[in-house]
């Protein structure tokens, strides 16, 4: 069994372009099995790639960024901001007198922007009615496969700082 051509054999054009049209289209069982085995190798390499990525992935470094003043928004109020890059839109909700939570605004289903529904006290995605818990960003209902990434907030005096993102 060989997966690759032996260069000393017949010229490639003779194998690929047969004199007879029917021969040209004919795929032997051996060729087909070889193709399936190579596809199987591809799947295995894919799994190995995930394994290597999970082993050697370095923890992402996040900087501290001021996103709001304490008391800037009312209880059940919302502030939108971007973190860690200007392309990453996030949503912060004040859930209590001294409680704030922040999540990525990108729905984990197909990336629509989620919004805070104060009457249901949850984050909702308008595209396919995916709902997320305001407590931890977990999926309550709908097609999203994963929780929303949560932005870590730290209080520094009267400032609220974003210091990292969990679950990216």
């Amino acid at each position: 069994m060989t997966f690759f051509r032996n260069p000393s054999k017949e010229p490639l054009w003779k194998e690929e372009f047969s004199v007879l049209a029917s021969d040209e289209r004919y795929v032997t069982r051996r060729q087909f099995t070889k193709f399936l085995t190579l596809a199987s190798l591809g799947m295995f390499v894919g799994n190995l790639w995930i394994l290597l990525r999970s082993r050697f992935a370095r923890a992402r470094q996040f900087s501290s960024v001021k996103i709001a003043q304490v008391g800037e928004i009312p209880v059940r109020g919302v502030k939108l901001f971007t973190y860690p890059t200007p392309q990453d839109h996030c949503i912060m909700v004040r859930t209590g007198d001294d409680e704030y939570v922040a999540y990525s605004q990108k729905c984990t289903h197909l990336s629509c922007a989620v919004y805070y529904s104060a009457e249901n006290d949850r984050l909702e995605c308008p595209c396919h009615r995916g709902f997320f818990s305001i407590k931890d960003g977990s999926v309550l209902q709908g097609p999203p496969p994963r929780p929303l990434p949560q932005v870590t907030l730290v209080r520094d005096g009267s400032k609220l700082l974003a210091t990292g993102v969990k679950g990216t």
Partner: protein
Amino acid sequence: MPSAEPHKQRRGLVAIDGAMALIAIILIVQMWLLSATLETYLAGHTGAVVPAALFSGLLFSGCLALNLFVDRVDRGTWHS
């Protein structure tokens, strides 16, 4: 194409078809395994990554063994 006796050929063909069907099933399982592993990995769970890679490697070796089998039987059937 020089042919061996028809009975032997038929048996060879059945064996090859069976092996090919098994390879196709293995491939489908591997596809499912890869997409499931990717899904759990992206969800932040890494516990399934190692067993999935080992199992996928095992399935690939099964595929390789079946491929060798098909190769041998095919050669034996048509060129004996």
